[in-house]
């Protein structure tokens, strides 16, 4: 390949450019670039050329010159194959250009305007995607005009908006199948960000990205997703997977989701779950949405009064991963009647040999199962607790309401 090449190229520098066999014999035009599927910066291994309505693959090695015109090697006769090389490849125009991608660094969905390549010797490597207005203008062919206008009017140069390829998660085409491989990129994201991304995507991309998540991440993200979309997502995946995911979710979120599903589907999902968890959820499902019962969760720790502080702390440590609320331990007698509430602060400051009955404060604040949700909010505001126990008519502890559920009542559209 000849000298005086640029260090960087754009996809738009190649798209629709003519390809010459010798200096004057035109062969066709470039319709796509083919990259290997590799991390972090994939190399361009060939081009797709269109001649007389047909598309052919040409390996990059066949190109002898890029400037002033793309010229192919004359030494060996050209074998035009329409088949692509067998190894893992990405057709950049078909799968990346103009498509939506996830910028895992900025945690948002963006549309690709152009691609940015770095030249290493005679090969190109894909280093950035361009998502800025400048890239768009370059595609339209107005980059120079815009530059001059902006410089003349405001002495301003519009910068490129690049995202490094290592932060890019492609969503379309064959990459859907590969998603689980490159999924590491997605697992950097906070579940709440992931939820926003899933909400921003449309149609197949949305379900594809959700399918690719592992059960735990899927459950965490699902908790944060808008209920309408939650429902669609859970209906598109196989029942067994749905059961696994719902099992991982916090009981109060899981119940909200199940309540929105058609009855048969919800039942199928429950049947696929662990017995104990399913029963908890079934119990929660009975309560209407807008009452304390509808807000509560069953993932809390309850102990009997004669348990020692030492044992209580070790039980808490043990159970913590599965609990929705770890701020309090609930003291109940053998009949599950609520006796008292002990905060984690009380627990940590107490002597390890004391029993829970010695610690518990004389007065316990709780709400009734059928209490209206607005009353619950009032109680939270009044007492400033991070969680409230929910009891039935006979003062049996049935569940607890965490502060997060109250936030959903107060600001349903936030986040």
């Amino acid at each position, binding site marked *: 390949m000849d000298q005086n090449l640029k260090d960087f190229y754009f996809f738009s520098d190649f798209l629709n450019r003519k390809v010459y066999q010798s200096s004057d014999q035109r062969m066709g035009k470039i319709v796509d670039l083919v990259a290997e599927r590799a991390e972090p910066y994939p190399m361009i291994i060939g081009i797709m050329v269109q001649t007389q309505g047909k598309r052919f693959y040409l390996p990059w090695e066949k190109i002898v010159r890029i400037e002033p015109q793309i010229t192919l090697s004359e030494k060996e006769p050209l074998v035009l194959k329409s088949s692509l090389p067998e190894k893992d490849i990405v057709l950049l125009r078909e799968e990346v250009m*103009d498509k939506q991608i996830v910028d895992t660094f900025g945690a948002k969905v963006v549309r690709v305007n152009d691609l940015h390549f770095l030249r290493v010797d005679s090969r190109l490597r894909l280093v950035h995607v361009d998502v800025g207005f400048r890239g768009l203008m370059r*595609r*339209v062919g107005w980059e120079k005009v815009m530059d001059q206008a902006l410089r003349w009017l405001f002495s301003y140069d519009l910068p490129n908006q690049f995202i490094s390829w290592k932060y890019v998660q492609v969503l379309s085409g064959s990459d859907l199948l590969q998603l689980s491989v490159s999924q590491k990129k997605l697992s950097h994201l906070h579940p709440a960000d992931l939820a926003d991304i899933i909400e921003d995507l449309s149609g197949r991309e*949305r379900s594809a990205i959700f399918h690719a998540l592992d059960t735990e991440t899927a459950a965490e993200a699902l908790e944060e997703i808008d209920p*309408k979309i939650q429902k669609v997502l859970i209906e598109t995946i196989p029942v067994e997977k749905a059961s696994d995911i719902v099992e991982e979710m916090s009981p109060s979120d899981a119940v909200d989701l199940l309540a929105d599903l058609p009855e048969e589907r919800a039942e199928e999902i429950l049947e696929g779950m662990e017995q104990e968890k399913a029963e908890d959820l079934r119990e929660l499902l009975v309560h209407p949405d807008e009452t304390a019962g509808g807000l509560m969760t069953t993932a809390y720790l309850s102990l009997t009064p004669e348990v020692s502080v030492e044992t209580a702390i070790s039980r808490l440590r043990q159970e913590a991963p599965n609990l929705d609320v770890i701020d309090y331990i609930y003291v109940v007698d053998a009949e599950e009647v609520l006796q008292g509430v002990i905060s984690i602060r009380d627990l940590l400051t107490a002597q390890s040999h004391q029993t829970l009955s010695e610690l518990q404060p004389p007065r316990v604040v709780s709400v009734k199962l059928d209490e209206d949700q607005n009353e619950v909010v009032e109680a939270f505001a009044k007492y400033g607790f991070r969680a409230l126990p929910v009891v039935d008519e006979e003062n049996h502890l049935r569940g607890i309401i965490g502060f997060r559920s109250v936030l959903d009542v107060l600001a349903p559209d936030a986040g």
Partner: protein
Amino acid sequence: MADYTKWVSSSRGSLWRTVGLFFVLMGPGIITSNVDNDAGGITTYSLAGAQFGLKLIWSLIPIMIALIVIQEMCARMGVVTGKGLSDLIREKFGAKITFYLMIGVFLTNMGNVLSEFAGVAAGMEVFGVNKFISVPLSAFLVWWMVVKGTYKSVEKAFLVACIFYISYIITGVIVKPDWGHVFEQFTHPQLSFQPSEMTMLIGLVGTTIAPWMQFYLQASIVEKGIKIDEYKFARFDVVMGSVIVHIVAFFIILVCAETLFKHGVRIETAKDAALSLAPLAGKYCSYLFAFGLVNASLFSASILPLSTTYLICEGLGWEAGIDKKFVEAPQFYGFYSIIIFLGAGIILYPNFPLIPIMYFSQVINGMVLPFVLIFMLLLINDKKLMMGYTNGPIFNTIAWVTSIVMISFTLILLIRMI
């Protein structure tokens, strides 16, 4: 909403279930079609009735079929792909084509918004309200509904607004037409190839099928999250909408034909039509007609700016959505404000050459529509995109014929105008 869906889908009786599901899923088709009967539409129908009587009324049937065919394709694309039309066009045809198409769509929709605010001003003037009060007030109302309301409440408000189109039907009954004669006009279509008649016919087609509708319908289908197995309800919604819009159009033509045409009154705008109705059919007729105009204009004025902004941002890859802050989506809010500000502001400018501007927006409308139709046909026949839901041969034939007729009509219109 979720409760209804659950209740409906779990109810046993199949008729109940069907009717119920339809009511849950209806909206996009009916709203889109009714927005279509905007200020420009009412003006065109009034003129058609006043100038030619019932002579052209048969044309409503082929126009309706064309509208159903085109809208159905959009609805299907929305349901199957879960993406908006400008999104699909960008992904299939690339940045360059999309960019120019978006400029075209922006200009035509800008013209449409302008004519909606002009409609508000004209309609309110019949009630004696100065345009310097009615236009800023309606612009604010439009802005407030979008920024402060959610899609759900806005949609409900719009469905209610659809009911007010009945005012035209009532007017139609008040003027006591000769129904036998009306029926005969439908069964014996006639067309003389006079230039004035042809222009009116093209005008009727042009006002009924506009580029923005396809974008808006598909976007609201996607927004509604309709699934493939619920698609038949969405289709019914689209068909219903197209039928309703033509019933309204029919009554507008009828009213003007039975009164203005019979007495040889010449009119130039929808406001003229409303005012001229008073001596012929009574004061209330005139008020009802004007009220319909205001309702239609306001209705379209609240949908068009937002839908235009959405589709442009979607196509060019900018952040969009009323739940975003200004710094997150500057282009979105910028475009939205520009459209409303210009649309309402220009109307208030004294002696503004409104008629040439509306003409110009019609020309661009005509230039953009063929592209949109061709893109749609290419997209809907893309097997990879539509999977098992591409057009069948019969549907394809109807769709292509419709598109070619539409395109040639708009081309004739363009040639006439230049």
